[in-house]
């Protein structure tokens, strides 16, 4: 605290008149000259025009990703003409080239090898009876527990990858803390605002390959689905809207491609958490389709991919609830947004994940 003194007598309006406030206003310091309001506008509009010419495409893309509403309309009202202008000029490419070294991310927003180019991951919807050959059934499809065979655990969990979208937080950090003492190296790699049904920010087909290449995990915990429900491209330039069976087919294909990447030919285990139903009815519809697709996607790899049911744990009977009984006490488990788990909820999920990890690995760390 500064040296206490009594409150000053009324001295306003000029803030500078208060001696205790000496040098407390930016204009009290030696400063540049005062200009006119029109100079302020010139300055701001020069900056705005330059940014529109160079980053017009980004402005348009940002607007297109926003939820419907007045903000989106305002951004697109600027973004569409700015994007058109930027498309006509070579400035954006030049600026991207100049600033590429500063970017903290690899470009994983689609392209070769991504969902929208790979026939397995995300090609047009193809349903049984349209010429698709029956998929081969392999031993990977059988969980030894279902067969009544004693499972052969993997030797040691040394490297764990926890990934997904915002649902993966705070589970990722809780898992990392819990396993740090055992010497397990946990890579936390959640990507907020991303989804399997949208590839504009991150294409999970590309990202999953990169994640496995970078961290070579023994196990992968995946918790995502907060941003799903976007339409998939279909044959002939059409699209498949959520949440039909056709939409679930494509979602399952993409999820299966990711599962196949994460399981590393059987060297790793995958723990894919289903979605606790969200509070809003439209989101519940999406969550049900996502959960159904996850279950189908995992079928060929049931010996390595565990689908961990969060739906029944947090929303039994398909009914949303913000709180549940934990250790005899009613406890909030969801965040106020009605989508995510809070710390207490994530701890419930954590216990379930840890139980499965302990069953699958002879030793943690």
């Amino acid at each position: 605290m500064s040296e206490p003194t009594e409150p000053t007598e009324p001295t306003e309006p000029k803030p500078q008149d208060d001696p205790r406030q000496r040098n407390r206003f930016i204009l009290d310091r030696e400063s540049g000259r005062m200009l006119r309001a029109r100079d302020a506008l010139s300055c701001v509009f020069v900056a705005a025009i330059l940014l529109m010419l160079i980053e017009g495409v980004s402005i348009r893309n940002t607007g297109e990703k926003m939820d419907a509403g007045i903000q989106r309309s305002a951004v697109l009202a600027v973004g569409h003409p700015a994007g058109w202008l930027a498309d006509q000029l070579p400035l954006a490419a030049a600026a991207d080239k100049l600033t590429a070294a500063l970017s903290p991310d690899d470009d994983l927003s689609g392209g070769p090898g991504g969902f929208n180019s790979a026939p397995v991951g995300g090609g047009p919807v193809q349903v049984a009876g349209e010429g698709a050959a029956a998929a081969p059934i392999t031993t990977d499809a059988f969980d030894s527990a279902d067969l009544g065979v004693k499972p052969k655990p993997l030797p040691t969990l040394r490297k764990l990858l926890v990934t997904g979208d915002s649902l993966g937080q705070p589970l990722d950090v809780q898992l990392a803390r819990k396993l740090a003492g055992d010497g397990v190296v946990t890579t936390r790699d959640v990507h907020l605002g991303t989804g399997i049904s949208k590839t504009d920010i991150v294409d999970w087909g590309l990202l999953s390959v990169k994640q496995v290449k970078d961290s070579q995990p023994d196990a992968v915990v995946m918790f995502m689905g907060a941003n799903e429900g976007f339409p998939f491209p279909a044959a002939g330039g059409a699209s498949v809207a959520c949440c039909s069976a056709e939409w679930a087919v494509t979602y399952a294909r993409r999820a299966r491609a990711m599962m196949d990447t994460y399981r590393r030919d059987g060297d790793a285990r995958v723990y894919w958490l289903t979605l606790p139903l969200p509070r809003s009815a439209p989101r519940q519809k999406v969550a049900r389709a996502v959960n159904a697709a996850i279950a189908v996607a995992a079928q060929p790899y049931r010996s390595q991919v565990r689908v961990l049911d969060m739906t029944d744990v947090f929303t039994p009977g398909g009914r949303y609830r913000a709180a549940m009984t934990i250790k005899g006490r009613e406890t909030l488990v969801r965040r106020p947004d009605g989508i995510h788990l809070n710390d207490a909820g994530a701890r419930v999920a954590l216990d379930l994940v840890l139980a499965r990890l302990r069953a699958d690995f002879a030793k943690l760390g």
Partner: protein
Amino acid sequence: MVFPTVQFAVFFPIVLALSWALMRRQGVWKPFMLAMSFLFYAAADPMFCVMLAGMILGNQGAAQLIHRSDDARRRKLIVVAAVTADLITLGIFKYYGFFTPEINGLLDTVGLGMPIPLADIVLPVGISFITFQAISYTVDVYRRLIEPATTIDVGLYLSFFPHLVAGPIVRAREFIPQLQSPRDPRKVAVGAGVVLIVIGLVKKVAIADYLAREIVDPVFGVPQAYSAPDAILASYAYAVQIFCDFSGYTDIAIGLALLMGFVFPQNFDRPYRAASFGEFWQRWHMTLSRFLRDFLYIPLGGNRGGKLKTVRNLMITMLLGGLWHGAAWGFILWGAIHGIALVVEHQFRGKIRLPKWLAWFLVFHIVVLAWIPFRAPDLDLAGAFFSRLLDWGPATLWTAPIVILTFLVIGLQLLPSRPMDALRVRFEQLHPVALGASMACVILLVAATVSSQGVPPFIYFSF
């Protein structure tokens, strides 16, 4: 709406142009600016606007009643009721979720199984700042430091978008007089405003967010996975992150206000050069510091009641200052550390004289250590972090950019300000078109450093 976003970049030039176009017609300008400020706030959640409107009308009603009354008891009763209502609003939104499980646990322990109902309450952004400014208005009217303003002026004071969500905490008697007459369009501090906006963007996006992503979040998230070198660097890096994040926000807020013709008080003045805790609080979050002094410490009696009462008043002020940041034991511990440091400093003032460098060294490192419980998600993890500071091992996160940025920001605060000020003034004197072009270049460079996750919210948004 967050400052460094496309939405705000679209919003601000339009509002700025219309603001100056309408400035001379105050009867139109004020409703326009009020509407724009509410639109800005509604972008976070339209329901928050109901709370904001309620605070405006409630405090204005109380101020009018206080002003009309000559009865000292009645005036006091009204001001107490108004401040209590403000604090209850703050308490419900901010502290209900924190205290409910604690109280329920206590009730369970003593066998009184009557739990308080749980509720998942959304915290309106900036509620702490809005509440303090509302209190400042009502109390200043009670103290006869200002006359009650018109309702629309009070509305503008509390909702003016540059300072709405994270300060600086502008006193009613600093802002409301600026609404009495149109701002002078021939005297706009364009250079100072633009330079502040640019500095704020660099601090927030290029420094604070970078350090958060690369070292602070990983180490504070899982301290058990790191050893002393990383924990030490992370603690310095967090001191830099929170300074750059919060002072970056207020730089932008002050800069935007200057372009609109308004002057806000400074909030930071190179706080890490302080050689005493008293000095630190004259340099860090200065508007909160003076609010706590004028509305809590002095009303409690300040330093007028002898040593013990001064100690009590300092501790209460700092503990509540900690709690103001949020409902968590870490904030309370942070307040307690600063309170104890101020008490010790107060008791030994004039008795022990340390060399200035040693005083700085001690103060700086206690401040850095006090940030650890402030940042850690809970006290257990704060404890784990402290234990890692002593557990020597490999440095896994020491990279040149992290080390350079961390020590550059701290080091610049220790250097004399004159050369930096001279540089700043040179930039401020550029032609407006050159200023605009420079701002665009900096925005492009800063935007290139943003990850695909976008710009994280300012730390103080959650306070």
